[in-house]
Each structure stands twice: as C-alpha cells, then as structure tokens.
C-alpha cells in the first residue's frame, strides 16, 4: 500500500485518479466502521452487558441451573455426533471430487449445497414428515421402540442436515487448488491409499479442515430453527442451549437468557479468533502455492 500513501502526498493528476481522494477515503472508512459497529458489534456487546446486568451472582446461578446443565450436555452430545459424521463425509466427498474427474461433478456440488438453500424450519419439517406419527417410517419405528421425533435422535439428524455442507465446502476448493500431483507421486512410489491420504494430503489441508470443523461445530451448537421444530421442547430432556435461551427469554428471565447466550457468544468469538489466526497462516501457504 505504499502506492496508496504516495497518492495522498504527491498531487499528480493521473496518479491521484487511481485511488480516491483523502476525503472520500475517510468517508468510506467511516461509513463501514459505523455500519459494522451498529449492526454487528453492538448486538455482541449487548449480550455480555445484559448477561452481567444483574450481577455475577445471577449470572452464575443461571449457568448452574439444572436445566442449563442438561441443555449444555445435550448440545455437546449433538455436536459430538454431528461434527464427526460430517467430517468423514466432507473428507470422502472432497477426495472424490477434487482428486478425480467425472461427469456430473458440478451437479453433485450443487446437491451438497442444498441444505444451505433450505430454511432451517423447512429442514426440521422434512424430518417431521419423515418420522412423524402419520408418516411411513414413524409407526414402524415406534413398533421397534425407537423414538426419533421429539427425542435426541431427531435433534441429531436435523443438526447433521443443517451442518452437512460445512466441512466439504471448506475442503473441496482447497484440495482442488492443490491438485493431485503429490498424491500421484506417493502412489507411484508404492504408498497405499490410506498412507497417501494421511501422510501427503492431510498435512496439506489440515488448517482448512480445522476451520471447516470449527464452523460446522459453531453451527451445530447454535442451530435453532430446525432443532426447535423436531425437539418438542421438553425441559431437561430435549432442550439444547439455543432452545433453553428462548424459554428463559420468554419467561421474562432476560438476564439468565443472556447469561446462557454469553456461552454461545464466547464460542463464536473463539471460532472467529482461530479463523483469523489460521488465515494469517493460510495466506502464506496459499501464496506459496501460487508462486510455482
């Protein structure tokens, strides 16, 4: 950006025309700052401000409530199933799509993106129609003694659906960019498929993979619409943290609701911090990729 600073010093007509004048520049930065501060930062600040507005005692009481604890446990359980499931899928899908050329690849990519295009509430509805009392599968599963809807399995499946594309969408472009020459070299030197993946491919994509997993996890723990439809809102049993926040808020326990919300807000901040750190690292490795 030495060029940009030079612009403001040297008043040379064609030179100045490449960048904006200092006044325009200042105005644009101010608009961006004010907009982001009001739209994005203010809501985040409010979460922590309201969480502690009634003092530390209320904050700790809200977190120590049995209902909060069971909601936290359920949220962790759901993420512990949904994230690894989509991680395995994301790795398999990106290996097939990035390392091989076949017909229908772009159609497959569109299908993988489908859950992004569907409203969370509709995603939940889909599973109600599939497993509900008047569906084909519902009565059959009920006979076998398996309850999917308004129980943990339904919450897990809806969460898997919602977070389905996250790891794959992060890995596929990265693996496509890296090509497959390194893997081909490894295989021609006698390495097996698994060995090639773990020793050649994985080290190249580990940071992208980690970021995909983090995003997937943040969404899995924070999903509201889809889970709300399939959960049945049974306190202490099928309430995840976001659903618990809604109940507290509607019960006029705003400080408690914000205390629980601050847990999820901290998770979001950690996700963003790791992302920013990874990007600083990434930029170097990606630039190195482009150079040769």
């Amino acid at each position: 950006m030495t060029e940009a600073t030079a612009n403001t010093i040297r008043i040379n007509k064609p030179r100045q025309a490449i960048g904006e004048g200092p006044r325009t520049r200042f105005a644009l930065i101010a608009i961006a700052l004010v907009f982001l501060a009001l739209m994005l930062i203010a809501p985040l600040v409010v979460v922590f401000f309201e969480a502690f507005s009634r003092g530390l005692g209320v904050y700790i009481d809200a977190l120590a409530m049995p209902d909060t604890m069971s909601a936290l446990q359920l949220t962790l359980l759901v993420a512990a199933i949904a994230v690894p499931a989509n991680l395995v899928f994301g790795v398999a899908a990106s290996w097939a799509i990035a390392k091989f050329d076949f017909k229908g690849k772009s159609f497959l990519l569109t299908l993988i993106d489908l859950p992004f295009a569907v409203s969370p509430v509709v995603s939940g509805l889909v599973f109600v129609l599939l497993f509900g009392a008047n569906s084909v599968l519902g009565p059959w599963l009920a006979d076998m003694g398996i309850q999917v809807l308004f129980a943990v399995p339904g919450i897990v499946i809806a969460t898997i659906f919602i977070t389905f594309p996250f790891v794959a969408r992060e890995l596929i472009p990265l693996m496509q960019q890296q090509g497959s020459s390194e893997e081909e070299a490894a295989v021609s030197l006698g390495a097996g498929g698994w060995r090639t993946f773990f020793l050649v491919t994985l080290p190249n994509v580990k940071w992208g993979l980690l970021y995909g997993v983090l995003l997937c996890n943040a969404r899995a723990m924070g999903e509201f619409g889809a889970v709300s439809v399939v959960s049945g809102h049974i306190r202490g049993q099928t309430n995840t943290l976001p659903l618990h926040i809604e109940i507290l808020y509607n019960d006029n326990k705003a400080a408690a609701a914000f205390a629980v919300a601050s847990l999820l807000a901290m998770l979001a901040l950690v996700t963003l911090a790791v992302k920013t750190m990874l990007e600083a690292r990434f930029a170097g490795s990606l630039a190195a990729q482009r150079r040769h």
Partner: protein
Amino acid sequence: MTAAAPDGARRTSWRRRSVLPGFNLTLGYTLAYLSLIVLIPLAALAIRSASLGWTEFWAIATDPRIVASLQLSFGAAILAALVNTVFGVIVAWVLVRYRFPGRRWLDAAVDLPFALPTAVAGIALATLYAPNGPFGAFLEGVFGVKVGFTSLGVVVALIFVGLPFVVRTVQPVLEEIDRETEEVSATLGAGRLRTVTRVIMPGLLPAILTGFALSFARGVGEYGSVIFIANNLPFQSEIAPLLIVIKLEEHNYAGATAIATIMLVISFAMLFVINLLQAWSRKWFGHD
C-alpha cells in the same frame, strides 16, 4: 481405500483415468450419505406436497394469512439484501483497498453473523431495538420510527444475518482485480468516479449479484433471529417460517408442507433468475 478396484474403475468411460485409489469408495460413500441425509428427506417433502392435490394446495396457497406471511418474508429479504449489497460493497472496498488501524479486527468481525447462533443474535437485537432499548428509543425519539416488534425489525434481523454473504463474495474478486486497467482508464482521462462505475463495477457485478442472491436466500428462510425482534402478529410481522411452525403445532401437516413447498419453489426460481443474470453479466463484461 482398498475397496476401490482400479481395474474395474478403468473400464468406466464417464470419468478420466487416475492412478489414485479410493474413487469408488469415496464417491460411493458420498452418494450414499447425501441420499440418506439430504435427498431422501427432501423427497419426502416433495411426495407429501404432491399428495395434497391441486384444489387443497391452491386453497392453502391463497389463504390471506399465508400470502401475507410470504409477502413479508420475501419483501423483507429483498430489502435486507439490497441494504447489505450497498453496505457490503462499501465494507469490502474499504477492507481491500485501504489500510487503517483496526482493519484486521473489522475483517474478522464481518464473519460474526456466521458464528453467532441466531437465537443469541435475536435476543440481542430485540433488546437493542425494543421501544425502551438504546437503538429503539433513539429511532423512535428522533425519527418517530418504530423498529422493534414491527415488520421493520424483521428487516433489521435479516440485515444482520445476511451481511457477511455480500462482503465475502465481493472481497476476493476485488482483491484479484488488476490495478493496471484502472491506471489505463485514468491516463486516458477518465475521472475517478467514471473509472469506478465504468471499469471496476462491471467486473464486480457477477460477485455482487451472487452476494445479493446468497443474502436474500438466507433471509427468506431465517427464523431464529427474527421471531424475537418481531412481535409475530398475523398480517403484520409474521414471517412464513414462523407460520410453518404454527401449522405444525396445530398438527396441520398439509398447511406446513404447502407453505414450505411454496417457499422452496419461489426461492429456487429467484436463484435461477439470478444465476441467469450472472451468466449474462459474465458474458457481457467478460469477468469471472
């Protein structure tokens, strides 16, 4: 990845040969998992919707309360996507072209709506824009505009959830733009405004359209952040996804299915049109 038989794979003509193993295993797993989690459940919705029959479907689709909720969902999503397009392009421009203290922080903050759960955003926005909240009191006192618990609140929530889509699609394209064309335009005598509108913006147009489309698509389906800031009154601030939830609570599966189908069809149609526009602008302005 021993399950893939290279000899068997080599015979198929629909894919190019490769020395790498694991194609059959990974593609097979991908297709099986995709079908099980996404395709079969969505097919259940399609089948259920098809079994409604035209007269029943039409009766539900023309119900005034449902029409009002769809109008609100799509109208607010378009409005929010427009606001996000204007401010998103400005934010992307500032992040790419200027260096100032705190730029990295600002860049990181753009992703906040991706990472913050919608219920958390919802109660935070509701508190800010409530009539006695800091923003709500200011807007009502100074401009006489009520935002919290009205349909305007819906737009505010959708602006929040949709903003990163515009910034994150425009930003990488802006980074790739060759500064030399701007220099050429300037040396040929074009003013800065003319260079920006005639040289830079056409190249950005496909990315801007994509960002608009993604922001819009996210807004139409959004539920968690909206229900807290809107007061959810029928015909006023009741969004379509909320009406689906209400129908489900009433065990009116036909109604819920019909609304979901209408939402999906309109969304897909609008995304299709925007895809056409993108292809058209790529063709005419010659940028990817």
